[in-house]
């Protein structure tokens, strides 16, 4: 009786286990297939929008896959010879023999039939191994990630140990123990891949675990298993999908390899790996028997890998700008900026999982053509720190942009708008004046274009700027106003995929469109740049001393083409026999000082001077007392020390123009004050000009004599510091002042400006050349009138040296 009971129980348990395993496998297989096809359709659809031209290669993957997969899938219904039927009389028939298109093998079996059945077997084994590895690996990863602590530590140490084995070796050992055979080989390969899945899934779970909705589920009284199944598992699906696709290729290769060694699929069953192994004997006499199966494996795996790449491009959460762009779009459609930014930060915390990416991608596809609704800027424009990240990595784009973009449709319409504002033009030239002293920097109608989804968008619009030697000017604006793009443009850097337009004359010579070598010569030697984040500005792998020496040596080598000489050659070429050309270039050369002013150290001329120069520079920024500083790495310094080093490097060649781009923003307040002091000291020179770019009016006030205010890429106010602080004429400047705790009038409460500045707009949007048509501040301006929406005000003289772009400038309130 007891025995019978046990038998029944055993039977039931077996059935149940089988059912469960089947269900699980079926579930995963179905999921896999379903999502696979969804993603595939998406991939194809999105390719339509981003242009077939660029993605033609990606079609090769699905094509190859279809070529191999489709006959393999329908093999049982194809009119093929029995792949295991041996006919010794027909052995080694050549290609195109009657009845055997690809001939036969050593046992007279039809090669084509064996190839197709073999592919079927290889794919099946590979997919099964992947599924097994995924199921076991995810289970481990889930447990480790969700329960943490001891469970996590134990499981992950185990996984680490498995990873300490050379990939195939563990599988070999397992096969050796279990004995050769298809299922054993599959299991062995699967186990060897478990660590990979376990790690990735654990990472994804750790990300998901800290999301708000998991806490909510816990608070709602749900138990852990419920949470795992209902909340965590679905969010893991895209991650798993990606992992499985990218490992599938390996799995197919490795299982075929085991069969090749005779440890997997056993004869006479057809399998690509086993066929290769059998064909090896006849390599010299009948190479095709071994070569063909290998080619099919290659096609299959190339197809899978190409497909995996395309899938990764579509799903990878690290391709974040999609989310950022979506945020912009939401904002531009007026859905409320709070919601937009919330959504953005939400996305930002989701790195590990791919949750939402599919719907993101779908939205992307469906909204790709709604350019008319609003303007999209490149993600980089949104945020000051990533601005520098958007820097072009070659000068080629800057050079090309200067000319090529201008030839395009884009700037034709910008040019037209100048006619509309002919009076503004006159004013501008009045503002910049024709001083007796030639300007060090003269910027005329500088526009910076960034790539938008619907064409080039104008991030900086026809900026006019003039800087004399000895002058210290602040450039103020919110993040996204284009101030950092302006700073970089002055060094000849254009945003990637964007361009620069207009004229930037430095020391009398045009800078835009210069060749790479002349620009290089200019950068660091005559114009120096100090970026926001000192840790980014220094190479983490090089010692401080080496980096300083590198900066000095950059301009020691006898120059083949210097900025001045190239510009002079050009001027000559343009001016022909014009005698002025030569002399004006000489002014450029002559104005170049040969001795450093601020520290009284002469510029290094030879390599032996470099060491002394390094010491002098360190002393200049007050770092000479730090022991062994030259041998340290950047991460061994404090933030303030790092920024001092960056400043020292900027001063290595006593530049004529120093551009500090949010140079103190990343530092805490006390350090900030110290750095401002250093900058103040080192920029107080009759020969040097300082352009201090910042969002913080208070900082600007502590350093500069003149302030330019930038709003949404447009210069809106230009005034001497005193006057700007006392009586701002532009409503935006007034609002900025009111926001500043240091500068705001004490009796007024601290006020944030409601709303957000508009993103750069595509040329020609709304029928306007600049995409706006009216005053850009209009939707946030408390004084806006109907006229403001209709026509953009020009930059007009308000008082002596005070210029403002507003129809209704503020009168002095006191």
């Amino acid at each position: 009786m007891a025995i019978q009971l046990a038998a029944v129980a055993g039977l039931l348990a077996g059935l149940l286990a089988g059912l469960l395993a089947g269900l699980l496998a079926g579930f995963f297989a179905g999921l896999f297939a379903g999502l696979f096809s969804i993603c595939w359709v998406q991939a194809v659809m999105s390719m339509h929008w981003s242009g077939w031209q660029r993605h033609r290669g990606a079609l090769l993957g699905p094509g190859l896959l279809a070529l191999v997969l489709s006959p393999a899938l329908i093999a049982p219904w194809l009119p093929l010879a029995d792949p295991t039927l041996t006919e010794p009389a027909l052995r080694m028939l050549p290609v195109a023999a009657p009845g055997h298109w690809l001939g036969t093998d050593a046992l007279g079996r039809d090669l084509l039939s064996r190839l197709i059945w073999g592919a079927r077997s290889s794919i099946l084994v590979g997919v099964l191994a992947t599924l097994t590895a995924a199921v076991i690996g995810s289970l481990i990863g889930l447990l480790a990630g969700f329960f943490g602590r001891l469970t996590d530590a134990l499981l992950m140490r185990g996984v680490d140990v498995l990873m300490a084995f050379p990939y195939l070796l563990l599988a070999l050992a397992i096969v050796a123990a279990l004995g050769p055979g298809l299922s054993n080989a599959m299991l062995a390969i699967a186990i060897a891949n478990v660590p990979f899945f376990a790690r990735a899934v654990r990472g994804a779970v750790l990300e998901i675990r800290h999301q708000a909705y998991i806490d909510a589920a816990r608070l709602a009284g749900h138990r852990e298993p419920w949470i795992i199944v209902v909340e965590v598992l679905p969010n893991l699906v895209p991650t798993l999908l990606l992992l499985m696709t990218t490992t599938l290729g390996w799995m197919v290769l490795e299982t075929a390899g085991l069969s090749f060694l005779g440890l997997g699929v056993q004869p006479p069953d057809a399998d690509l790996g086993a066929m290769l192994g059998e064909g090896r004997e006849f390599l010299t006499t009948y190479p095709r028997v071994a070569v063909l199966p290998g080619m099919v494996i290659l096609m299959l795996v190339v197809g899978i890998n190409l497909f995996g790449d395309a899938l990764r491009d579509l799903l990878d959460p690290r391709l974040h700008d999609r989310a950022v762009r979506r945020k912009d779009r939401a904002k531009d459609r007026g859905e409320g900026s709070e919601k937009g930014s919330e959504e953005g930060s939400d996305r930002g915390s989701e790195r590990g999982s791919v949750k939402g990416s599919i719907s993101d991608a779908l939205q992307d596809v469906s909204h790709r053509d709604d350019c008319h609704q609003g303007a999209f800027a490149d993600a980089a424009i949104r945020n000051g720190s990533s601005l520098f990240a958007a820097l072009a990595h070659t000068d080629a784009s800057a050079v090309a942009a200067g000319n090529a973009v201008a030839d395009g449709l884009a700037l034709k319409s910008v040019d037209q708008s100048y006619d509309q504002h002919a009076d503004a033009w006159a004013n501008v030239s009045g503002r910049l004046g024709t001083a007796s002293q030639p300007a060090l920097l003269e910027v005329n109608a500088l526009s910076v274009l960034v790539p938008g989804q619907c064409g080039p968008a104008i991030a900086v619009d026809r900026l006019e700027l003039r800087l004399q030697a000895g002058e210290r000017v602040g450039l103020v604006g919110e993040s996204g106003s284009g101030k950092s793009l302006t700073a970089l443009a002055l060094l000849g850097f254009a945003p990637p995929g964007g361009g620069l337009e207009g004229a930037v004359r430095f020391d009398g010579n045009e800078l835009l469109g210069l060749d790479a070598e002349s620009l290089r010569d200019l950068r660091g030697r005559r114009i120096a740049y100090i970026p926001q984040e000192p840790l980014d500005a220094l190479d983490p792998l090089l010692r401080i001393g080496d980096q300083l020496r590198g900066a000095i040596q950059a301009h020691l080598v006898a120059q083949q083409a210097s900025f001045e000489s190239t510009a002079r050659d050009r001027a000559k070429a343009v001016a022909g026999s014009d005698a002025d050309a030569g002399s004006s270039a000489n002014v450029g050369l002559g104005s170049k000082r040969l001795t450093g002013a601020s520290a009284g150290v002469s510029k290094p001329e030879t390599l032996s001077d470099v060491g002394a120069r390094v010491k002098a520079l360190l002393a200049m920024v007050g770092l000479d007392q730090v022991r062994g500083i030259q041998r340290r790495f950047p991460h061994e310094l404090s933030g303030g020390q790092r920024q001092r080093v960056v400043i020292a490097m900027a001063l290595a060649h006593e530049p004529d123009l120093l551009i500090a781009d949010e140079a103190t923003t990343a530092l805490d307040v006390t350090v900030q004050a110290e750095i401002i002091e250093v900058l103040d000291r080192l920029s107080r020179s009759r020969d040097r000009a300082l352009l201090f770019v910042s969002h913080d009016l208070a900082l600007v006030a502590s350093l500069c004599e003149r302030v330019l205010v930038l709003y949404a890429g447009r210069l809106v106010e230009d005034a001497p510091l005193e006057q700007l602080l006392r009586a701002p004429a532009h409503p935006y400047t007034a609002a900025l002042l009111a926001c500043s705790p240091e500068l705001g009038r004490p009796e007024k409460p601290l006020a944030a400006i409601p709303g957000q500045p508009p993103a750069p707009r595509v040329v020609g949007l709304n029928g306007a050349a600049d995409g706006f048509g009216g005053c850009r501040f209009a939707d946030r301006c408390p004084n806006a009138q109907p006229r403001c929406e209709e026509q953009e005000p020009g930059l007009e003289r308000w008082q002596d040296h005070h210029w403002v772009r507003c129809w209704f400038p503020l009168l002095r309130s006191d």
Partner: protein
Amino acid sequence: MSAYVLKRLLLLLPVLFGVSLVVFGVMSLVPGDPALAILGPYATPERLAELRAELGLDRRWPVRYGIWLSGVLDGDLGRSVSLERPVLDVVLERLGPTALLAGSALLLGTLLGLAAGMLAALRHNQMTDRLVTFGVLLGISIPSFWLGLVLILVFAVWLGWLPASGMTWVWSDASGLSAVPDIAWHLILPTLSLALVAGGVIGRLTRGAAIDVLASAPIRMARARGIPERRILLVQALKSVLARMTPVIGLQAGFVIGGAVYIETIFQWPGLGRLLVEAIAARDLLLVQGGVLVLAAAYVLVNLVADLAQHALDRRTRAA
């Protein structure tokens, strides 16, 4: 000898311990009587009983593991049934050729991969980049055992330029230094078959790393300082890429060792990989166990070296 090196060396111990545990554990997967599996069906009952006692099969597994481990630490990996020699002797004898093959393949693969990856990154989104990217993808997707056969077919069978099997010519009796050209000659094809595959993975990852590095703030800042492009690439960018790639190259050693199993089989290279395949065919389990243990330990050491190299390049790395 910094704290990092010490810490990293200490971390080696638990990993090696775990590896030995897994290798031992795999043996317990053997269905039925392990002694019978090891000795085969023709073993005498006396020998079976002897081996059972030797393996401690009548005792609990921690005790068995202890016995086995102390043997391993004494250099006793058991006796190979098929070769009738101590496993350790056989394994050490075969380790040299495998190390030579795997080492030269890893070196060549690294050079190829780094060069291809850097080139693609420098020409990002241009035709060269696409060609390299596709070539690298081919490298990843190609079955190395098939590549080896094709190379034999082309260079040994059709062109007759290079030898297709063995490590030296059969008739050669050169030894010591005079055997070097001979071995080098035989090394070319197997190395190539392995290196092209390893180079694929390295090239793919190098490309990604180099694109990141070239677009990174320190590199762009160097451009803003007017540092010559050549110097930026050769000093800064290369160092960053190498620092990122060293651990990957270390991991790649694992793929090369695994791939050596196929390649040694195809090219009749007298290494450990081929030995393993033969041992599996002969059901010589102790030999398999010993071979896997030694190769795994070697791999762990290679990764240690890779980590130390990375630390030398980038001092910010910490021992986890």
